[in-house]
């Protein structure tokens, strides 16, 4: 994938981040993404992201589970091998409710997690470019994609004026590839901790 140029601004407080997001967007810059150490509620709206449809997918998987259970069990017990269990009806719907319920939950949960990993491109051995190692610790990292007309230095200054504590320019690849993390810089290199 082609490499692109990004301007990175790091904020140390979400209450500074929100006005900054607004300023940057009003100024017409395209925010590539904001990397945060935890789920900051409302940030998705502030960035203008649309709502996720993951729960709809979950519903569809759940319904699939329900139908799978009911159709399989009823076919098996009424058509394929009708078993006489104490003279009770072959089509014993109340007795099938537990398994139907469990399969509904199982399909919905497994389906949703797999979908989540697929659309977010998360999997073992997947590697992505990380704009700042502290984005998973205590920094809110705003990444702005540069276009031909962007003056990166101006943008850096603009971010600093909006409250960024650290700014820099990075040329990076978007997307993901298979890779390892042990060749990355070690933030805590040579650090020794003795006591637990």
């Amino acid at each position, binding site marked *: 994938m082609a490499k692109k140029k990004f301007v990175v601004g790091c904020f140390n407080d979400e209450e500074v981040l929100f006005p900054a*997001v*607004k300023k940057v967007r009003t100024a017409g810059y395209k925010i590539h993404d904001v*990397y945060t150490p935890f789920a900051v*509620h409302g940030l*998705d709206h502030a960035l203008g992201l649309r709502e996720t449809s993951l729960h709809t997918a979950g519903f569809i998987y759940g319904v699939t589970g329900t139908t799978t259970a009911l159709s399989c069990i009823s076919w098996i*017990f009424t058509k394929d091998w009708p078993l006489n269990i104490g003279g009770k009806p072959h089509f014993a719907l109340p007795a*099938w409710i537990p398994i139907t319920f469990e399969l509904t939950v199982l399909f919905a949960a497994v389906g949703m997690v797999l979908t989540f990993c697929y659309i977010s491109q998360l999997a*073992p051995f997947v590697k992505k470019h990380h704009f700042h190692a502290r984005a998973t610790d*205590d920094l809110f990292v705003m990444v702005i994609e540069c276009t031909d007309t962007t003056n990166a230095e101006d943008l850096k200054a603009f971010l600093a004026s909006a409250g960024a504590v650290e700014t820099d320019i990075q040329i990076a690849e978007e997307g993901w590839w298979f890779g390892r993390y042990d060749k990355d810089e070690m933030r805590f290199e040579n650090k020794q901790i003795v006591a*637990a």
Partner: protein
Amino acid sequence: MHLKYESQLREPLVNGDKNYHQVTEDIVRPIEAKPTKLWYVGFYIAVSLLLFGVYAIYRDVTYGIGQWNLNKTVGWGWDITNFVWWVGIGHAGTLISAILLLFRQGWRTGVNRAAEAMTIFAVMCAGQFPIWHMGRVWMAFFVFPYPNSRGPLWVNFNSPLLWDVFAIGTYFTVSLLFWYSGLLPDFATVRDRAFTKLRKRLYGIAAFGWTGSTKHWQRHESLSLVLAGLSTPLVLSVHTIVSFDFATSVIPGWHTTIFPPYFVAGAIFSGFAMVQTLMLMIRKIFSMEDYITVGHIEAMNKVIVLTGSIVGVAYLTELFMGWYSQNKYEGYTFWYSRANLFSPYGWSYWGMMACNVLSPQIFWFRKMRRNLFVTFFMSIIVNIGMWFERFVIIVTSLYRDYLPSSWSVYYSPTIWEIGFYTGTFGLFFTCFFLFAKYFPVIAIAEIKYVLKTTGDGYKDKMGHLEHVPVEVFTHSGHGHTIVENDAASHG
């Protein structure tokens, strides 16, 4: 966006004046440090118990389960008692992470990760019992409905034992997914601050390439919420279905409609007790007192006294029904085989009553709820009591049923039954020690999320707002900055 302000009446969930980085430091420190001697001692004890269990199971497979003392009518003994006991323990984790998430209980953030881990390990232990009880364990796959060359001969979908297969299987899978999806961001935190190559590489694999992207967080939130919504009925269904194993039979003492709610309450009761045992150890060994506060312990003790009392009401209801039904078999089981202290198993019934119903009542007192020694002691007492409960239900109903000529001799376990049980303790604690050493035992991202609302330092700074009149508070914009921006971005 919620207001950052939270009443001073609520105890802080995070003690000490922390910032985000401090939270990371505190929780990741045990992973990055060398394990303490205490950890090694505990781990080796757990592994030796596990090895003994493995040997007991090896003998079960080699000689058959005839080496257990199960007899003509007591076909379920220690094995199924232990199965139900472990499944019950496995209920607290998902309850804490799912039901308390839906109820917006902030205190769950301190304990949910370890509680979920405990759930998964407890269900792993529980699963061992029905599997090895099968005897010919190489035929275990017969429990799955799959097209086969024997007819095809299908499993009995109307049987609670098959429902159990689906319930436990689903519960384990969903709990594991819920737990692991919550772990992804925290593994990324460990990865990004790793200072050895191996750690960076392994946590890099474990974190699935998590970056903390806003879009990913948005989906992650949606995923957690739906998984919580799914797990809530699931956690109730699992022990309901376990209780059906008994309730749908026609054995006196089992054939009662009260079983599902009674079992679910008992499961939550024993699960919270086990969470208490483990949390008190974790907060001590890893110095997590700031995150697992006395407030957390107290909240769980409240759940324990509530569910313990529900279980007590169920016991009394059963006794009442044993008389009121005027069914002599029911009456005999409840009033002779159980409630009569001088009947062969009377000791187990009264042990159960003392541990489950009487002793938790101590938690009506705030001082006791907040006393760590009392809590630790009680958490063990409760789990002993809950073991007795399952033993009472299973053995006292089986050893004397309708026909006096088939009454069995007194059932007591062999060393291999006991060995199997201690082996599951080994499995449980081996997993738990590894978890405590290599996994973030507290959900880092979730703690950061509640930190500014409920962290001690932040609450202190907001203390003066208590005296601000309402009109001034609502118009001064405290905590409103974000709301306005949020609205602006929509508009």
